[in-house]
């Protein structure tokens, strides 16, 4: 007889112990899903598009000149729109990843694994975190690049910078929630189309006049188009909006966790807190521009001298909004070059920075001409075409006396004004092309200035071209010698041509450009 003894079976199930780390599995799964996410074709394509577009913005757009003088309270929200490409890809692909087990029929196997479905849901939501982090790094790098420019002015806002990464996280959570609610692959793309239509409905149908609270429900509210405003006049509820995004993300995540079967008190409490945060964010961002803000905008637009600080350089006083005081030297360089060409004139000038803030951030309202003698307007944007435009403003005030008189110039003085402004530029001919509204250096047309444009006839245009071809010193000497006659409205174009020694136009052409 022999007895068979069985060794005791190894224990395969045991109650949870203190040493267990249930979150380790969640993190491991999140890491795995994040890597899977990066291998999805939509994520790859749209990520490359986003990075390429951003790199293009950083490197290739440098030639424009405008990027050398960024205004940081605009630069922070300029980086919000492009990351929506990544958000779109994350929404589609996270949704796809959550549905993978259902597609492959492995859902039922998960029932025997220690990782509960709600932790799996959480891991899928967490898989969007590395991409959100990447977007945060890119957005931060863009802003740091702008802030490191010597010509940068203003203050950025951290709350504007976090919008892009938060919207990527939100997209991931929406993808998870959709997959938990509708277990089919058509839910996410159709949701995206529906969302696009909602946004299109509110942006096109109301052409920007939609109520403030409705516009701010959108994850990203870029609000661009106008000239930069001082940061105190922005009126963007950026902090409330960031709170709204965080609250919404957590609330939707709690919804997804609940939908995957986790209905505990903790989830209920977190959901309630998240909903409260969302509601607080909506409540905070919904009221439109406050009365104080409207009053401050009114003051800055109508009487900027009350809020500006002034510095004197030579015979010229430069008045700028406090954030722009560092830009005085750039303006002074232009003013001094124009003064030098006009025969080192020492007229008393006041360069006044102005902005039209009453119509908000999106409207590009024109500035009215100043009537005070020797007052020159300068806007809040600088670099690129703004430099020759400002030079036109300075030259027209030097010649005509004040901006209102300059806007009525409809005679041969336009030649002197345009030559003074353009000869002060590094590349006069290309500046001439850009400063003309029609981008041509022939025929009649309008020359842009910080306030009202200046009309030029075809004959005057041809004369300016001829003057720009001559050596600067020769023309400058002639201008100095005949200043009184050149700045008189009575002098004819033929006489100006004689004084400056260029060919006069054959016939006195029609002045339709400036009478229009």
């Amino acid at each position, binding site marked *: 007889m022999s007895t068979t003894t069985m060794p005791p079976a190894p224990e395969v199930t045991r109650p949870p112990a203190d040493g267990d780390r249930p979150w380790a599995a969640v993190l491991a799964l999140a890491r795995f899903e994040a890597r*899977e996410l990066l*291998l*999805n*074709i*939509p994520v*790859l*394509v*749209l990520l490359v*598009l986003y990075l390429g*577009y951003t790199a293009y913005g950083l490197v290739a757009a440098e030639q424009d000149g405008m990027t050398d003088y960024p205004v940081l309270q605009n630069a922070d929200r300029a980086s919000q729109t492009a990351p929506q*490409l990544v958000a*779109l*890809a994350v929404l*589609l*692909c996270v949704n*796809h990843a959550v*549905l993978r087990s259902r*597609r492959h029929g492995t859902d039922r196997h998960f029932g025997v694994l220690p990782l509960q479905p709600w932790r799996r849901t959480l891991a899928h939501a967490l898989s969007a975190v590395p991409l959100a982090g990447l977007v945060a790094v890119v957005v931060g790098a863009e802003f740091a690049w702008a802030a490191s420019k010597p010509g940068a002015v203003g203050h950025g806002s951290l709350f504007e910078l976090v919008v892009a990464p938060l919207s990527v996280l939100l997209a991931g959570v929406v993808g998870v929630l959709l997959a938990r609610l509708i277990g*089919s*692959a*058509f839910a*996410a*793309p*159709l949701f*995206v*189309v*529906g969302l*696009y*239509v909602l946004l*299109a*409905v509110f942006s*096109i*149908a109301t052409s920007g006049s939609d109520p403030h609270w409705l516009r701010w429900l959108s994850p990203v509210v870029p609000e661009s188009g106008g000239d930069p405003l001082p940061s105190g006049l922005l009126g963007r509820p950026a902090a409330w909006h960031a709170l709204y995004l965080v609250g919404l993300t957590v609330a939707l995540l709690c919804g997804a966790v609940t939908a995957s079967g986790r209905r505990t008190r903790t989830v209920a409490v977190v959901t309630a807190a998240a909903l409260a945060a969302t509601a607080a964010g909506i409540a905070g961002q919904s009221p439109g521009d406050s009365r104080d803000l409207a009053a401050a905008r009114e003051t800055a637009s109508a009487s900027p001298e009350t809020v500006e600080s002034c510095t004197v350089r030579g015979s010229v006083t430069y008045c700028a909004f406090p954030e722009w005081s560092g830009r005085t030297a750039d303006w002074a360089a232009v003013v001094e070059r124009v003064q030098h060409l006009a025969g080192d004139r020492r007229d008393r000038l006041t360069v006044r920075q102005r902005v039209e803030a009453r119509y908000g951030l999106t409207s590009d309202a024109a500035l009215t001409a100043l009537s005070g003698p020797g007052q020159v307007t300068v806007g809040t944007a600088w670099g690129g075409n703004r430099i020759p435009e400002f030079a036109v403003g300075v030259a027209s005030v030097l010649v005509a006396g004040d901006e209102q008189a300059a806007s009525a110039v409809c005679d041969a003085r336009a030649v002197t004004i345009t030559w003074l402004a353009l000869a002060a530029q590094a590349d006069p001919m290309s500046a001439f092309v850009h400063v003309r509204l029609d981008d041509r250096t022939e025929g009649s047309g309008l020359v842009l200035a910080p306030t009202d444009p200046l009309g030029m006839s075809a004959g005057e245009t041809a004369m300016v071209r001829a003057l720009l071809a001559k050596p600067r010193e020769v023309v400058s000497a002639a201008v100095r010698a005949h200043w009184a006659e050149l700045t008189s409205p009575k002098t004819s174009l033929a006489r100006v041509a004689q004084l400056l020694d260029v060919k006069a136009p054959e016939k006195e052409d029609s002045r339709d450009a400036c009478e229009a």
Partner: protein
Amino acid sequence: MIGPLLRPTARMLPRAALTAGVALGLLVAALPRLLPDTESQLFGLALLRATALAFALGLAFLLDDPARPTTETVPTGQPVRTWLRAALALPAAALGWCAALLLVPQAARPPLGDVTAEAAALTATALALAAAAARRTSETQPGRIAVQALPVLVVVGLLLPERWGLFVAPGSPEWDAAHHRWAAVLLVALVVWTASVREPIRRRTLRNGFGMGTLRP
């Protein structure tokens, strides 16, 4: 041979996805009737494009067929079944599109022929993507791949510079040139569709070349 196949094929169509796409499309097209002051051509065009995209996304699931592995080897093979599915679904989709065009008010209607060409090109692209996915992989539900690729292509189309743009505004000088490009898209999609409907003898999978496994669409 086609006659006996008709009823089972019609029963096998992925109705949920097709209905969802068409329903969303019609809902979108009906928006100007529901909202006040929205009768601009730009708005009508944006909505009809969204409708076309919703239709295309729904139709992308047309080739989803859980029984695909079992019908690959029968004498009446996949190509016949695929063409049959298209022949059954496309007239219904065309009817839905006509309804969508009628739902947009007269004042908001962009040039209908051109918009229909855009819708046809989008739908053909969706079907071509699904057919190509079905040919390349052993996937029984190629629709899920197509609906991931189609939005990406649309986004790329939206980002194209004006000179090569597809989604141009009504009244733009590029309108006619853009619709020649749409015709080219339609043609390419039809060629890809026709070439992909033929079942391959052996499949090649897409490898990403880094030894990290298969690149997943």
